[in-house]
């Protein structure tokens, strides 16, 4: 049967694979035939993701993306990749005048600096196969801003810009780089901080014409971008938000 979206025989790496969107992407990519390397800090939750995955050969890597040593050690042991999906991320909600250095370091290290270190080293070590697809999970918050979310928006804006510049650089190797900007996908990222509340959920529910998203809604875009169907797609930013940013 004609299937340009198959991931049979592909090896991919997913960061933030222990929960939320990263977990959903790992599970769905495995369903499409990929072998997945799952990266996150929490081994127990990585194993929970692994237990929900089809197929054999998936491997977990307990890695803190804020630790250069962790990143570099992992890159030594992984095989050559056909795809990378960078989902690891945290939210820090605070007004600009309340921002402190600790918050800046934590969110920038997790949301963008770790990604840059990982990608740079992987390229240096030639761990990407010809035709590899790199996907950054960004956010609609790059352009649809909210009070108190300046740090998060700044990190995700950096992700978008980095991805575009990288796409240009690696095109000669047929490596493609794209971003997905999800709307509201309920997940554990919201569990820490002041934002997970009934009124918050109600506010967002009323503004998503197609309702809230699920990790699978984002995973399906990843599957497309990883597959041969997206052979001619690079440097693009996909907003997938159930119509949230239409108005």
């Amino acid at each position: 049967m004609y299937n340009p979206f198959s991931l049979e025989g592909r090896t991919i790496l997913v960061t933030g694979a222990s929960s939320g969107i990263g977990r959903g992407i790992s599970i769905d990519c495995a369903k499409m035939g990929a072998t997945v390397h799952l990266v996150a800090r929490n081994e127990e939750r990585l194993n929970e993701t692994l237990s929900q995955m089809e197929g054999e050969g998936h491997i977990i890597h307990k890695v803190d993306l804020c630790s250069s040593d962790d990143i570099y050690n992992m890159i030594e042991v992984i095989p050559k990749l056909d795809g990378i999906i960078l989902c690891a991320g945290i939210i820090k909600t605070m007004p600009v005048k309340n921002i402190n250095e600790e918050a800046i370091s934590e969110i920038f290290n997790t949301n963008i600096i770790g990604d840059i270190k990982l990608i740079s080293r992987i390229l240096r070590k030639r761990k990407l196969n010809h035709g590899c697809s790199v996907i950054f999970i960004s956010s609609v918050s790059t352009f649809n801003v909210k009070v108190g979310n300046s740090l998060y928006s700044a990190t995700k804006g950096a992700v978008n810009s980095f991805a575009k510049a990288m796409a240009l650089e690696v095109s000669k190797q047929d490596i493609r780089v794209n971003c997905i900007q999800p709307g509201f996908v309920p997940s554990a990222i919201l569990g820490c901080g002041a934002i997970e509340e009934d009124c918050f959920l109600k506010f967002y529910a009323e503004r998503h014409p197609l309702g809230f998203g699920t990790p699978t809604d984002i995973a399906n875009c990843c599957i497309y971008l990883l597959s041969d169907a997206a052979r001619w797609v690079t440097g693009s930013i996909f907003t997938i938000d159930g119509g949230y940013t239409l108005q």
Partner: protein
Amino acid sequence: MNLEEFIKAFAEEFDETPADIFKADTKYRQLKEWSSLTALSIISMVDDQFDKTITGADIRSTETIEDLFNIVQAK
């Protein structure tokens, strides 16, 4: 932390409202300057200065600054 220190730190999160307006029994959510942004400032201030985590629901459950102080104390 005592109530007086809390009121002082609380007042510092406001840009327009004069500091002498803030008393233990001030119904702070009725202040003209109060907004979701000031609420986030108060949450950040409590986290920073008192190492306690309060939520928007905690804030909405209070009327006066002393009410909020008591919630922070109980955390």
